């Protein structure tokens, strides 16, 4: 009863505000809206063009985002969901909660990407990051890594998106041999963490020689800390892509504004903020170009399973991974 009263009270406060300027609510992951993330600058830039109020709502990390959308269902207050990745778009499509976006724009992704429901806003290659001062000759393939006695830290594919990305990377690169690759890697893996931040933190503390992260991670240390000791190992089989996307919810009460936001997403006002706040490649390179360090580690070959294929491969790949690592 108290909740209802409170809700009624809040609704009365909210109504006059609604009448003045339209509100566009964007559901995204927490680090996007933190004060050092892309959120604040993007909010200012978009509000300058739309005469609207852009509100970001955080929903934990990337993996929690889709669950949140499903929990809210049709009753969601959100208009746009920003931050799903290509490992999750098949499941997101299957919910039937997203509407076609109609954005036609060219992007600078290293692979062809077009999806009727989702617009990409940034992307990165998964890679093992190491410290050049401690490791002179990094491995050049998964087989090379498995044969070495290097210690690595990875993330759990059951709780984090990079962990799932690695699973799909090995599967896309090695297909039927994926299980053997994992068996070979088993003695290199120091531990498997629940999320990216624990793994990266452990690596920086010197707990492993390499950590699963992104090719752009060294650029963070270079730009933010003037530290050029970190590097990403380039693998011959190519690197798996993570493409982060946004989509419009079918139940939105601001469809036009949502479309406007998705189109704005690929403009300079949004894209120029991405590299040094989200530390990923912008989906469309802004006119100002990329900051230093973003060209340092560019794999020759990019791997990406189509969303439906990735979703179909997941359970089998997970079982292989578990069998290989439970010794």
């Amino acid at each position: 009863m108290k909740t209802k009263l409170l809700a009624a009270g809040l609704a009365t406060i909210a109504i006059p505000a609604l009448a003045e300027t339209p509100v566009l609510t964007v559901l995204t992951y927490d680090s996007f809206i933190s004060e050092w993330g892309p959120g604040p600058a993007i909010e200012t830039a978009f509000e300058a063009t739309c005469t609207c109020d852009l509100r970001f709502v955080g929903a934990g990390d990337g993996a929690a985002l889709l669950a949140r959308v499903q929990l809210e269902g049709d009753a969601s207050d959100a208009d746009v969901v920003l931050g799903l990745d290509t490992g999750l778009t098949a499941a997101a499509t299957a919910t039937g909660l997203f509407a076609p976006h109609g954005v036609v724009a060219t992007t600078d992704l290293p692979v062809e990407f077009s999806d009727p429901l989702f617009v990409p806003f940034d992307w990165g290659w998964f890679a093992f990051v190491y410290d050049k001062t401690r490791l002179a000759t990094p491995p050049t393939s998964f087989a090379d890594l498995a044969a070495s006695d290097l210690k690595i830290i990875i993330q759990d594919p059951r709780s984090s998106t990079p962990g799932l990305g690695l699973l799909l990377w090995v599967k896309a690169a090695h297909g039927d041999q994926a299980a053997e690759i994992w068996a070979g890697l088993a003695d290199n893996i120091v531990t498997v963490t629940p999320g990216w931040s624990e793994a990266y933190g452990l690596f920086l503390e010197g707990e492993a020689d390499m950590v699963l992260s992104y090719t752009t991670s060294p650029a963070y240390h270079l730009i933010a800390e003037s530290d050029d000791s970190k590097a990403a190992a380039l693998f011959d089989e190519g690197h798996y892509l993570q493409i982060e996307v946004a989509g419009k919810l079918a139940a939105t009460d601001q469809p036009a504004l949502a479309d406007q936001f998705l189109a704005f997403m690929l403009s300079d006002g949004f894209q120029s903020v991405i590299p040094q706040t989200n530390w990923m490649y912008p989906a469309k390179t802004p006119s100002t170009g990329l900051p230093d360090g973003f060209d340092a580690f560019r794999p020759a070959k990019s791997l990406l399973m189509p969303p439906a294929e990735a979703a179909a491969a997941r359970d089998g790949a997970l079982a292989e991974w578990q069998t290989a690592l439970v010794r």
Partner: protein
Amino acid sequence: MADSARPLNRVALVPAALLLALVAVPLVAVASRATGFALAPADWAAVRFSIFQALLSAIFSTLLAIPVARALARRRFAGRGALITLMGAPFLLPAIVAVLGLLAVFGRSGMMNDFGAMAGLPQVSIYGLHGVVLAHVFLNMPLAVRMILQGWQAIPTERFRLAASLGFGPAEVARHLERPMLRSVLPGAALVIFVICLTSFAVVLTLGGGPRATTVELAIYQAVRFDFDLGRAALLALVQFAICAAAAGLAWAVVRPAGFGAGLDRQMALGAPRGWRQVVDVGVIGAAALFLLVPLAAVILRGVPGLFDLPTSVLGASLRSIAVAAISTCITVSMALVMAVAVASRARGAAIIEAAAVVPLAASGLVLGTGLFLIVHPFASPTSLALPVTVLVNTALSLPYVYRLLLPEARALAADYGRLADSLGLQGFARWRWLVLPRLARPLGFGAGIAAALSMGDLGVIALFAGESQATLPLLVQQLMGSYRMEAAAAAALLLVTLSFALFWICDWGGRRAAA
């Protein structure tokens, strides 16, 4: 006694019912959205591993705590009070901060391996079951030490004097005084630690070394986040409750009230045994202090460099965390006190109250958060209720600790003074003012400290609810870590630990002062 028990009984059932509802209703909300109920085959392996590691953690934490608590109880030395307070600090650390502190000592490039390398020893890895248990002992032994130490201090000094005048040696003292006390305290302590470790998530995964160390909580994560299988999540949460209920039943079957009777409350320095026993006590206190304080020092050292470039949002986050902690502590302590006193007076319905005070420990944070989200969402924006919901959940999650701390002393109070108070007609407000509150001031202060610190450090459900500007300090630490800012995260974690410890110290000190 019956006269005083009955009204109290009815009052105490209210918080108990609220607690049970807070745990059960979200579970039902999650289950109501399920499309089917089935466990995956791997889930049973997760259940087995969860129980096994929690059992080992509880056994080691409590057994290792006994000699430490005994040494602290019978020795007097300069800085003893400060050491006891400080040794409680690891219990207040957020899991990932504790893990990083432990790794500075036991990690691959930690101090132990550096010393080992100098001595030509092979590298020792902390990752695996032993690392999980080590971390759980580090986090929970402080709680066990404090609970057992309270037990020791609750034995009236007169009993020790009687033992001395009867010519009891250490063996007889152990048999007639210490073992009965342990039997009344240990099962509760072990139960609480078992259940905490059962639902432990980040520690087990990070130090577990791989999918061998899969817990029920991870399976719940997977079910909610990647499979959106709410039926499986609800079922797994139910399994956790079942394990908790079984453990609680076992603990109740073993526990026996010690029945020492009342003393004259005179604290006296007793002649503690000399000779080799003194050497052992010094060694035990020294070893425990090293084990608990060196990783803590590592946390402090890691945090100091980043203190000056913390983001400005740290101030708001700190104030929000303190406000949440203060409010939930007041509610928690009041509820726990009413419940413990009612159970101690053996009022009818005591079993329900006992159950309500343990069950929240076994609640899966993710299921609780998801359920509350489902309940709140149709009526109000979850973001607007982030802080009230956090207060509510923190209250439910910290109450079991406070209740456990209060119960043994509330029982002793009822046994020692209940009849006297009844015969004097000391009832209602006067009974609380002149008997219950003064007699229970020490455990109340300690319990309030634990509740405040837990509310500060607990991430709980805030991540599901918080919007743009409602981050609490633990959430801020997580966000900083999630965007490469490890130095700032370490500094924010240090701030969090310092504030938690300060709140804990204020409450604990206040309680001891009021008792003295």
